[in-house]
């Protein structure tokens, strides 16, 4: 099909444009509009995870830490410190996530491979227990409540984000910026070195790159994206549940990214959409929906390690060009 080939080629040349076009109409393609915002936010979370795992080759099992820090940063700024500005509140979360990512990354990057994965998980659990016990600041087990959905103040314009669609397009604008930012990172020399480290860290080091510093930077960028996702989710729900720091959240983003396709540009969003639609549909029938998702995930690890998008790109005619590959 020459038509499909042309579309795939255009998608590959303008991935950010394709993202904007698709997600501009996305709320009208899903069963209900709240799901669209969820896909967008978890897609952003998975995008951050994918930068570290898919592109740098570092498997973090504790990405809930940065998502949770982002959510709590924004939540505490708006609900406890009563910052009157949405922008300041929204900035506080990712800032906290970046600081946390810089500190935790420093420790975790002292070890490689499997150790790294489990260390990230250990630090995320540490933050979970801290948030659990610091109830005065975080609300503890009850979660942080009372986050106001302040109107967006854009050059004097006041836009409400209280409606589902209003919030969706507010989040959409920010996620588009994040996706464009990721594209910029991947196209930069820094992004190329990340992928070189994924392929062969020793060789990258031999070429004179400061591998540990570059990994640390990648970690911090990844935490930034995850933190922005957490901050947006805090605004969406108007509450931060303490589970946002729990290992289950870390597991979710791992599953989403691998379902969609690690190391692909659109994979994280494909994975987030698949996961959330599955959860939505399955939970109607059974409380044990995580069992089904767990089995699907195991099947993917065993037989489809490239994920849905990665497999499509590898097997469809013209598919490779949809990922910008010649």
């Amino acid at each position: 099909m020459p038509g499909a080939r042309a579309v795939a080629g255009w998608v590959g040349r303008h991935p950010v444009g394709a993202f904007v076009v698709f997600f501009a109409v996305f709320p009208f393609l899903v069963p209900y509009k709240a799901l669209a915002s969820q896909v967008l936010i978890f897609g952003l979370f998975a995008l951050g995870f994918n930068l570290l795992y898919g592109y740098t080759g570092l498997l973090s099992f504790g990405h809930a830490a940065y998502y949770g820090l982002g959510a709590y940063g924004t939540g505490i700024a708006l609900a406890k410190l009563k910052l009157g500005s949405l922008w300041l509140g929204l900035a506080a979360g990712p800032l906290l996530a970046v600081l946390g990512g810089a500190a935790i990354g420093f420790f975790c990057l002292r070890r490689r491979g499997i150790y790294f994965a489990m260390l990230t998980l250990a630090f995320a659990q540490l933050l979970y227990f801290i948030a659990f016990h610091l109830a005065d600041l975080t609300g503890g087990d009850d979660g942080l409540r009372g986050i106001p959905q302040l109107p967006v103040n854009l050059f004097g314009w006041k836009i409400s984000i209280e409606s589902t669609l209003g919030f969706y397009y507010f989040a959409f604008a920010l996620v588009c910026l994040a996706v464009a930012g990721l594209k910029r990172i991947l196209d930069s020399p820094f992004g190329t070195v990340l992928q070189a480290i994924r392929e062969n860290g020793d060789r990258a080091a031999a070429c004179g790159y400061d591998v540990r510093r570059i990994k640390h930077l990648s970690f911090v960028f990844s935490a930034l994206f995850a933190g922005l996702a957490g901050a947006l989710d805090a605004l969406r729900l108007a509450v931060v549940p303490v589970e946002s720091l729990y290992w289950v959240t870390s597991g979710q983003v791992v599953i989403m990214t691998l379902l969609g396709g690690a190391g692909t540009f659109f994979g994280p969003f494909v994975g987030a959409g698949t996961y959330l639609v599955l959860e939505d549909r399955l939970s109607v029938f059974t409380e044990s929906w995580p069992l089904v998702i767990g089995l699907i995930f195991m099947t993917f690890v065993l037989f489809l390690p490239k994920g849905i998008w990665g497999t499509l790109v590898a097997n469809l005619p013209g598919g490779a060009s949809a990922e910008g590959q010649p």
Partner: protein
Amino acid sequence: MEFSVAAVLPQIFTGLVLGMIFVLLAIGLSLIFGLMTVVNFAHGALYMLGAYFTVFFLGYTRNFWLALLLAPLMVGMFGLLVERFLIRRLYGRSPDDPLLLTFGLSLVLIETAKLLWGKIGLTLDPPRELGGAVNLGFMAFPAYRLFVIAVTVVVLLALWAFLTRTNVGLIIRAGSRDPLMVRALGIDLNRIWLLVFGIGCGLAGLAGALAGPMRGAYAEMGVTMVIESFVVVVVGGMGSLLGAVVAGIMMGQVVGITTFFAPQLAEIMVFVVMALVLLVRPSGIFGEAGLME
């Protein structure tokens, strides 16, 4: 509050019992990792299965001792199946893949446990023979907890003898040093890996079976345990069994003593100790040494 020795001693003993559970879990993780470079994330779920199987066999046979023997064996057998039909497909792929697979497996096992045995969890009484407390002279301590310490010591000694005094143990130690060389000598390492994975899982099952009468059985009981056991392995030095034992006992003490002075910090202290060890000695206390050295 008075910090008398008499008040702290029971905490030290309670910490020692927790340390024993850590040691059993960590030594299985470390053994599997040392030989196969596989991190078994499902270790916590197998610990949980150990506890549930004990409840199940106890109800079936009415004999705690038989249940305590059968449950770890069943978990070990399950481990054999996992290695043979799941993990084995992933050799030669990225070392992250077995971790991801066993993560999925632990989700499946936790949800299956909820389906089979309910969400609330079950309680398990220690056998009547071990129901009371033993007077140690300086204090009284629950007999069952002393039993847990004794069983762990016996199992550790048996494992040590197995690894150092038998031919299979020799092959296991050699295989963790240089698998290629062991293969070149005509030894079928696949069977050794299968065995070691089974033993490691069986030890997790034993830990769960022993913990059952103290903590009950519930679907998510293994999640925090597997993370903390991994911390123990990191602190002790990955692949070092002596490190797993020393660090396991140490972490048990850290939790036990912190619980006495500041209970809400107990869960956090484990990770603080880990961060400190990582700063000072990134490879862990016994990190440089090989298996059993």
